[in-house]
């Protein structure tokens, strides 16, 4: 069961990567990878989560150094993990909250000026992240992989 969960997670993460870059090629940016990593924070231990986060960072980093943007991108799922451990909310309630907070923190930290002028882009990004996060919940929940 542990191996099935990990294999499924890798496939979902690859799907998230493909979706994010497919949409990006059309000029639409939705953080499927970040949403996936945040949801994973509620289903995996810190060791496995770190592997997924580092893979996500490796794929999404667009430059040869680790910038502040990428550092924040990687820290958010870790923070979601810590939040889950400390507060122990139900996954169905905590994960959407974590996704919303994670996206807002990311954009406040990386593009604060643009954040307030382009809130509709953020809304669309959030919606995509929440829908994809919900898809991951359903898969893990149906397969009872929590």
């Amino acid at each position, binding site marked *: 069961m542990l191996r099935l969960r990990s294999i499924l997670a890798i496939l979902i993460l690859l799907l998230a990567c493909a979706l994010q870059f497919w949409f*990006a090629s059309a*000029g639409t940016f939705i953080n499927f990878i970040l949403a996936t990593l945040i949801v994973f924070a509620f289903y995996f231990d810190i060791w496995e989560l770190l592997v997924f986060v580092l893979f996500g960072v490796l794929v999404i980093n*667009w430059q*040869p150094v680790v910038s502040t943007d990428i550092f924040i991108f990687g820290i958010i799922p870790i923070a979601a993990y810590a939040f889950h451990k400390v507060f122990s909310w139900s996954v169905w309630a905590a994960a959407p909250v974590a996704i919303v907070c994670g996206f807002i923190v990311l954009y406040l930290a990386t593009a604060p000026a643009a954040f307030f*002028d382009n809130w509709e882009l953020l809304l669309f990004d959030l919606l995509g992240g929440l829908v994809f996060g919900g898809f991951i919940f359903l898969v893990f929940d149906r397969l009872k992989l929590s």
Partner: protein
Amino acid sequence: MGRKRIPNNHWAAAALIVILALLIFFAPSYGWTIRAWLSPMPGGGAAGAGASQTDDQNLTEENDALKAQLATFAVVASELPTSTPDTVRAMVYSRYPMNFRNELLVNVGSNDGIAPGAAVTFQGMLLGQVETVFSDTALVQTIFDNALKMPVRVGSAGADGLLQGGSDPIVGSIASNAAIEPGDVVYSAAPGIPYALPIAQVVATGTSGDSFFQQATLNFPYDVNNVETVLITK
């Protein structure tokens, strides 16, 4: 009292963490390769074959896919600019993957004579400016980046304006009595960038929110998401 044994999967995870960290810091090009493998081909992807299709249909679709790939390569080849002694041709390695910013990583850097602030053009039009230079790569801030602000001029009268970057760039801070109209060309007038490089064409004019200035919405004859090669001034 026995020592607590570390589970095998933690050892495996630790090894993967170390490997991934090394790749991130010392060989990030592997990430770009994975990204390229997961991304669609520029200009559209190849058609896939359904399990229930016949062999003839499979061959036809494969043939169409190969023709599409050839057409794409032809497009890229046609975009390849002729370098001059003052410019360097560069390929786009990767792009900023999230909202609000628009940056490209190109495959030339300080070893090729590139310096920060250099102008980056695509098909003769100013696309952006080099922001950060590494030894073999450089980061380009395009005019579609929300943080970009650049002095420009508009039309034959040369009305001064400020190009505001973003997903829909506009030219603002144009004097209210300046004679600008749809069809006027917007061109560069910023220090450090060659003067009069075309940027875009005015598609509509209007008044700014505070009613003190005019502003112009722009039309670009290319899609920045499909730019694969650029020229960079030395």
